[in-house]
């Protein structure tokens, strides 16, 4: 396994994903690493964050003493609304998502398969908390980036031939950014685009159970 010092941490993954956020994008961020992406988006571009509980133009956490119980994000954290923000009901919120008006969806996953299937909501036999808005997001969004660790705590690959856990959506993930690599999901399998600094192609191959396509020289991520 790769030495820890070469792998990206959660902030590193978020920083790399922030590069995928383009000028003029409406973006939905899931809970966990995806939430951190907002911290690294360039400030010379115009981006609005959507939270599916009913806000576009979500801002940072409020200053102490300014928290409002009527203003939270999908993770139930207190937030602020930026100038130009709007509020709406849950049907309109998922209308934005289902109608493909949201340009980019970033979410976490337990497993991704080489055909783009994603599993991130249920581990049979363990407490099931529910899918929230994840199934709606992955069923409709055209541009879905998964932010996750390449392997689970036991060291097993999370990039699989076929998901073992109950699916959240089928053939929907477009890109994966892990602590080891940036990978595109193609019809032929996982295509390696970039390596984390100091991580070798061999190490990525070893940590990837699904079919990994390696074409030519694989550059290191620029962070």
């Amino acid at each position, binding site marked *: 396994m790769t030495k820890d010092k070469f792998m990206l941490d959660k902030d590193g993954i978020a920083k790399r994903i922030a590069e995928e956020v383009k000028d003029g994008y409406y973006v939905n961020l899931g809970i966990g690493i995806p939430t951190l992406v907002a911290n690294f988006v360039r400030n010379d571009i115009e981006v609005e964050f959507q*939270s*599916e*509980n*009913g*806000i576009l133009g979500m801002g*940072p*956490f*409020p*200053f*102490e*003493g*300014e*928290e*409002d*119980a*009527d*203003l*939270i*994000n*999908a*993770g*139930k*954290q*207190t*937030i602020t*609304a930026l100038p130009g923000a709007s*509020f*709406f*009901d*849950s*049907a309109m*919120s*998922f209308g934005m*998502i*289902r109608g493909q008006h949201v340009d980019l969806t970033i979410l976490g996953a337990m497993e991704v398969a080489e055909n783009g299937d994603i599993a991130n909501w249920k581990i049979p036999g363990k*407490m*099931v*908390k*529910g*899918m*929230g*808005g*994840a*199934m*709606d997001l992955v*069923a*409709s969004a055209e541009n879905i980036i998964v932010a996750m660790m390449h392997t689970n705590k036991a060291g097993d690959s999370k990039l699989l031939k076929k998901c073992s856990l*109950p*699916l*959240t*959506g*089928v053939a929907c993930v477009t890109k994966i950014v892990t602590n080891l690599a940036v990978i595109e999901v193609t019809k032929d399998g996982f295509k390696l685009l970039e390596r984390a600094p100091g991580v070798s192609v061999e190490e990525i191959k070893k940590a990837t159970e699904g079919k990994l396509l390696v074409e030519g020289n694989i550059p290191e991520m620029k962070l």
Partner: protein
Amino acid sequence: MIRKTVANVEDALQGVENGMTFMLGGFGLSGIPENAISELVRLNVKNLTCISNNAGVDDFGLGLLLQKKQIDKMVSSYVGENDEFERQMLSEELDVELIPQGTLAARCQAAQQGFPAIYTPAGYGTEVSQFKETREFDGKMYVLEKAFKADFAFVKAWKGDKAGNLIFKGTARNFNPLMCGAAKVTVVEVEELVEPGELDPNQIHIPGIFVQRIFEGKNYEKRIEKRTVRKK
């Protein structure tokens, strides 16, 4: 003007019985009908089915009904943050139907607007679409999801007038507007109840036609589930 006001929460919940199906607005603890929930606890009605995005926390929101074992079945999209819920679910005292959040919203809205069912891509190819009718439109697969049927909808709005016109605040809006008129009886509690004419008709989110009973709620706690702040 058709007056929708009732004197208090006791009058507002007249007709509530054991075994009924309720819709309850709110996302997390934001925009939940606190007064109606307290009254349901006091009435101690049992064997309820509750349609609500979340299930509250142990000691607040729907968690209060769970503690008293008043709920037989929950229909929700996300139910974390609640130990008692987890215990009842794992011991099979509580029946739980988990559905995608957008589907939950759409099934409320379908009931409100007279659609028997809607097609959504959410959940296709997953266990959510098992035993459900699916259909292809323009090369993409969709799942047929039916409108909810409920006896009461309990809704929380920010301001309302005596004709039942409603305005919601911030992200406390969430499922509340979609549940208005989606059940046989819609009961709305507001933080501020005003005379007709005081609310600008241009700013109304939900017209009073979708509301049967409205009252001004009391003692709102408006609890924050995850307080996140930054330093000045």
